[in-house]
């Protein structure tokens, strides 16, 4: 394999891995459930994007024709990630999970749980 393709693939792989790692790190270190929710929904999207880009480039090079599987996976990820986050946030509110002290407008979560208007 040519050097420059190896280089591009490795850069995408490492960058993707770093973002996935940061997403997992966020899960471990952020203060409460709601803030933890942000790490895997965002950092991981780009991380997976990087890994999939690496895969697409490598496969396209090896097979000699355009590999589009990865595009499909990206599409599914982009559709499912926000839905998962939304369902988790909803569940968290119904379980009345603890919200970190500093959170501004904590009361809003009670209004949201009842699906009321804010005031």
């Amino acid at each position, binding site marked *: 394999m040519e050097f420059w393709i190896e280089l591009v693939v490795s850069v995408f792989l490492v960058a993707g891995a770093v*973002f996935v790692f*940061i*997403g997992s*790190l*966020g899960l471990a*270190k*952020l*203060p*409460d459930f*709601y*803030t933890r*929710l*942000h*790490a895997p*929904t*965002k*950092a991981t*999207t*780009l991380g997976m994007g990087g890994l999939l880009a690496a895969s697409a480039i490598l496969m396209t090079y090896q097979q000699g024709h355009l*590999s*589009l*599987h990865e*595009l*499909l996976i990206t599409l599914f990820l*982009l*559709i499912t*990630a*926000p*839905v998962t*986050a*939304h369902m988790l*946030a*909803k569940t968290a*509110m119904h379980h009345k999970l603890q919200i*970190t002290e*500093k*959170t*501004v*407008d*904590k009361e*809003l*979560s009670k*209004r*949201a*749980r009842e*699906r*009321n*208007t*804010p005031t």
Partner: protein
Amino acid sequence: MKSQPRFRLLPMPIHSLLLFVVWLLLNNTVAPGHLVLGAFLALVIPLLTSGMQSPQPSFHKPLVTFRYALMVIADIIVANFEVALLVIGPSKKLNPAFIAVPLDIQYELPITILASTVSLTPGTVSAEISEDKQWLYVHVLHMTNKDELIALIKQRYEKPLMEIFEC
């Protein structure tokens, strides 16, 4: 609300096209056998499922839609870097918040797209929607200015969506 023209044998033309393309992408081929099978699935699945669909406003401005998609992808990348930096930085500095965004758009599909965009972009996760569909509750990882953030969501995401769906 304008909805798509309904043909009896092809109730959801756009969905059919999407199914066909996704089938070919899944199999990573354009072999004749898969073309036939894909076309068959693309015709039959909408026939079976169209009855479950509630009427939704359809996409109108393809160009605006395309620009919106590109903007969202760019914003996802920016938001990823921002959130990554916030995660690495000290947790004490974080300023999490709940906000309620007043909604001007109506109907489930546009609201779903807005909520998904909000979840994927600027450090926000949409948590709940009020029963009357007038308010979107959002959790923010690090809030600097509440009014600015609400204005950003409304200006940057809601406005083009209203234009696309003409509602």
